[in-house]
């Protein structure tokens, strides 16, 4: 069966940031008995890839990015039950616990990263803003997370990112999780100083970083 037209429509819905259309097409695909993971791979992921390209080319800005991420979320909401049913896995990534660090209420950047990670196939547990250090770890333990991502906007609260890593060490859990820090004042240098595993300068780069880290870890584990 040739589903080229349907897949192109799905991709376009993502590029257009049209959640209603993205969800409707996902429903049609299920109705036609298509395999959800194939639909994601062939229909929606190319759209996301195109959005990434448009961002890199400077044609797309944050509003387009977030609309596309939300369209992806709408499609996934329709497809996910079927995925679980067939035992497939939407995510090529893994599980992410994310939040704005203790003492900080600024969550726009964190929301962007969460949305993009989710759109990029990660299972995201967003704890919101002003998240206690212990809560990051408790949640990560509870859901079996791969990543802990902590955001900070203020240079005063940024220090808590470092304390989060220290707390992980204290609880002897440091090697269990990949820690990514972000936020306006964070930098690659700061990530190193804080003892985090990664830093990305924006939401698109964060998805790429997380994917790279997952594959690096997979390679490492095989060695």
């Amino acid at each position, binding site marked *: 069966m040739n589903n080229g037209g349907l897949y192109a429509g799905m991709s376009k819905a993502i590029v257009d940031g049209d959640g209603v259309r993205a969800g409707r097409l996902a429903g049609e695909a299920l109705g036609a008995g298509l395999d959800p993971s194939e639909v994601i791979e062939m229909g929606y992921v190319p759209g996301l890839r195109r959005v990434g390209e448009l961002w890199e080319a*400077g044609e797309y*800005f*944050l*509003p387009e990015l977030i609309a596309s991420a939300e369209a992806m979320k709408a499609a996934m909401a329709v497809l996910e039950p079927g995925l679980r049913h067939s035992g497939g896995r939407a995510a090529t990534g893994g599980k992410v616990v994310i939040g704005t660090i203790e003492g900080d*209420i600024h969550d*726009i*950047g964190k929301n*962007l990263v969460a949305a993009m990670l989710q759109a990029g196939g990660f299972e995201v547990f967003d704890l919101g803003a002003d998240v206690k250090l212990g809560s990051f770890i408790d949640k990560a333990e509870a859901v079996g997370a791969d990543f802990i991502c902590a955001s900070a906007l*203020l*240079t*005063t609260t940024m220090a808590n990112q470092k304390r989060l890593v220290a707390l992980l060490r204290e609880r002897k859990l440091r090697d269990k999780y990949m820690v990514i820090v972000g936020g*306006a*004042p964070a930098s690659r240098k700061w990530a190193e100083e804080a003892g985090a595993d990664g830093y990305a300068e*924006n*939401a698109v780069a964060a998805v790429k970083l997380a994917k790279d880290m997952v594959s690096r870890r997979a390679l490492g584990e095989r060695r």
Partner: protein
Amino acid sequence: MIETRRPKIEFLSPELADKIVDEGLALLEKEGIFVENREALKLLGEAGAAADGATLRVRIGRGLVLECLASTPATITMYDRSGEKSYLVGGDEIHFDPGSAAVSLLDHGTQEERKAGTRDLIDFYRLVETLDHIHFQSTGLVSSDVPAGVADAYRLYLGLLHSAKPFVTGTFRVEGFEPMKDMLAAVRGGEEELRRKPLAIFDACPSPPLKWSNLTTRSLIDAARAGIPSELISMGMTGATSLATIAGTLVQHVAESLAGLVICQLARRGAPVIFGGSPSSFDMRKGTTPMGAVETMMIDSAYAQIGKRLKLPTHAYMALSDAKVNDAQSGIETAMGAVLAALSGINVISGPGMLDFESCQSFEKLVIDDEICGMAYRLIAGVAQREEPIALDKFEGFKPDFQFLSHPHTRCWYRREHILPRLMDRDPYEAWVMAGRTTVLDKAHRDVEERLRKPPLSPLPAGTRADLQKIMAGYARSQGLGPLPEPGL
């Protein structure tokens, strides 16, 4: 003599300004605002607003807002530490103060940002004290070597020890208010004296969209009762935490600010309030909040116009830059902001010295900006008719070799009509080369060093100093802390 016109700009037509206010009032009445403080909700409820204790949402009727606007003073007179020198905050008077609460300092030697410590904060106060065109101090740096629990009170403490100018400051924690108020009252010699002669303005920021947090609401109530002016710092970011349109952002700005003003008035009628803000254009690529964006400045000027229309003193974060070093961008954004703010007649203009989105102070930038502020004051002084006739009589006996350099009229007026810059380069080319091809930054750095080498301008009398030390030490103890870095460095 013909009256001198003060040059002025207004971005909004009266119709648009009124419509923005009208929608702001309707927004408060219809959709309401979140107030995360029980006492404020109670005050609002008692005054007839529809306050819901469960959702913390309160709808404030137009009548109550207008009544509160009527009881808010149109002007505030700030006094310096001695209580002798006064500054009118209102009308079209302008006063610059450094951008506040930077967490880092641009190190001139390395040209990199580094964390600021207590030593830096003291230098900052001493430097600002020497700058003639920066009328107010601000608690401009957060010392990284002081525990966060007492950082708000501690920076005011150091400021009062080292500076005589009025302050723009604020609390980081609810507990910080009391010791800060006590210190201000100790300087004045009592709370009643402090009420009569305000020494510090407290900033309080709503959280966009449409929310007053517990900390900031508490600050509004406490400050109102102590007679300390509250500066309302609404800060929508276009397209992120407020509407993408400038006019839409202004509607939210009005609603948030007026809700804050109502809380102040209900806490104490006649409480001084400043219609301020730190809104910004939101960069849709970087996700940042550029204070140097031209749209940010348009929002600032426009809400200040609305504040004036509401007969309130005004404030804005202008005359600052998002550049990371003192380069062309920092000069462009700072000067554009200073001039626009001055032409808008904004009463308190916070910004000088600041780089990197309100997060980094630079001593060199402070002295450069002081010069910019001097130009702004000159600009709004306008073109005056000094004599009658203006010129005609000076040309009597006019001959071919006529010039004005030796004319008595020149010596009478040139200093009053023209300012002589300290840092801007006006050398002929050869002289500039001979002098070592110095840039404004080189000169600024030398200027900073010279100013800091001089003995402190405004040490505090020993008796008051001891009072403040006692209050600060008591507060630190109450927070479970030992001795703090010694300010007598």
